[in-house]
């Protein structure tokens, strides 16, 4: 399959794996890239040497291109921004902030720059500052989210910029992929479905929590702090929402979430930890290899796009 995104990233299929904190490490990223998609290592709050090591390990597993997602709120963001130029990764995606100060440095190093955006204005600004593409991420996504849905955001961003758009949020199979292409996207980014991939190192409890999730099982916390997060409902989200309602301070709420994602991903504490996942978790029913996931999506999307709709 060919789109401007597959050409930009030099990949076979326009499917990108989200750069999820703790989840998107070298085995998952390498498996996605090896299967013809584009894998991302999520730098999250990790120190620079840890991320460098992840890049090197991924490179041992695949000779295909992959990238790094840099979470700009991280205290290590600046060092990691520099490090990726030394390690010569194929692309950088960014979240939780504005990557403008780093863009010239990345472009000079030949790295493709793909900021994640949740609004038209930010997409336009990123284009103006030299971004190669943007990920338009709707609020169906897991983790930190904006307010507009993928269905509404993607076509508006696609109309506003000339660079290619990658749709994210609520996409979990070939139907979602075909729909995203119809909305004007030239690739999709998926997180939740790759979390349960065989190559994903998350705790079995985390995978089972997603596999068992229903359509209504995700919840948004942190709306009052200005940093809303979508995760699967559990003891943690209930407690958080109760404290939020009682007017707990930003510091109290932050303290509560400290290390809570790690607790769920690594220790398998899916009751007291944060199980980040998108609204599409209800659609994800089984563990498969990354190659199976990608091939299945392609054949589903392909069949839909080729279907004769008998219009007029």
């Amino acid at each position: 399959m060919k789109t401007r995104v597959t050409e930009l990233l030099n990949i076979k299929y326009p499917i990108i794996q989200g750069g999820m904190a703790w989840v998107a490490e070298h085995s998952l990223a390498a498996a996605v890239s090896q299967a013809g998609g584009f894998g991302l290592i999520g730098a999250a709050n990790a120190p620079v040497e840890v991320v460098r090591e992840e890049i090197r390990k991924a490179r041992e597993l695949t000779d295909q291109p992959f990238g790094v997602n840099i979470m700009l709120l991280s205290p290590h963001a600046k060092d990691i921004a520099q490090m990726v130029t030394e390690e010569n990764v194929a692309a950088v995606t960014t979240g939780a902030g504005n990557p403008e100060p780093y863009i010239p440095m990345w472009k000079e190093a030949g790295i493709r720059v793909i900021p994640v955006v949740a609004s038209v204005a930010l997409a336009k600004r990123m284009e103006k500052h030299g971004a190669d593409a943007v990920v338009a991420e709707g609020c169906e996504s897991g983790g930190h989210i904006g307010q507009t849905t993928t269905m509404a955001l993607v076509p508006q961003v696609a109309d506003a910029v000339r660079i290619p758009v990658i749709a994210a949020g609520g996409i979990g199979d070939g139907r979602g992929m075909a729909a995203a292409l119809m909305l004007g996207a030239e690739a999709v980014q998926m997180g939740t479905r790759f979390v349960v991939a065989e190559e994903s190192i998350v705790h079995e409890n985390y995978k089972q929590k997603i596999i068992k999730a229903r359509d209504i099982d995700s919840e948004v916390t942190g709306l009052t702090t200005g940093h809303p997060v979508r995760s699967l409902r559990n003891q943690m989200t209930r407690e958080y929402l109760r404290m939020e309602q009682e007017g707990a301070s930003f510091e109290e709420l932050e303290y509560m979430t400290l290390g809570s994602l790690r607790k769920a991903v690594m220790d398998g504490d899916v009751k007291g930890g944060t199980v980040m996942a998108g609204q599409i978790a209800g659609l994800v029913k089984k563990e498969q290899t990354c190659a199976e996931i990608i091939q299945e999506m392609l054949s589903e999307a392909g069949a839909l796009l080729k279907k004769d709709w008998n219009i007029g």
Partner: protein
Amino acid sequence: MLEKMREIIAEQLNVDEAEISEVTSFKEDLGADSLDLFELVMALEENYEVEIPAEDLTELTTVGKVMDYLKAKGVE
């Protein structure tokens, strides 16, 4: 300048012009989040034909600070 600023801010942040003075804080008084502020900055860049780099955004917290900032950039 304040007159035009109020117009731009009112339009971008969907607030009443009467709510806007030099001491108005975008975040605290008008409830603007980071996406709102980007809308505003893009509108300011267009209206005043200036470039506002990302590293300057954090200091632009109130209407008065934006006005000082623009004046320093030569906006009348």
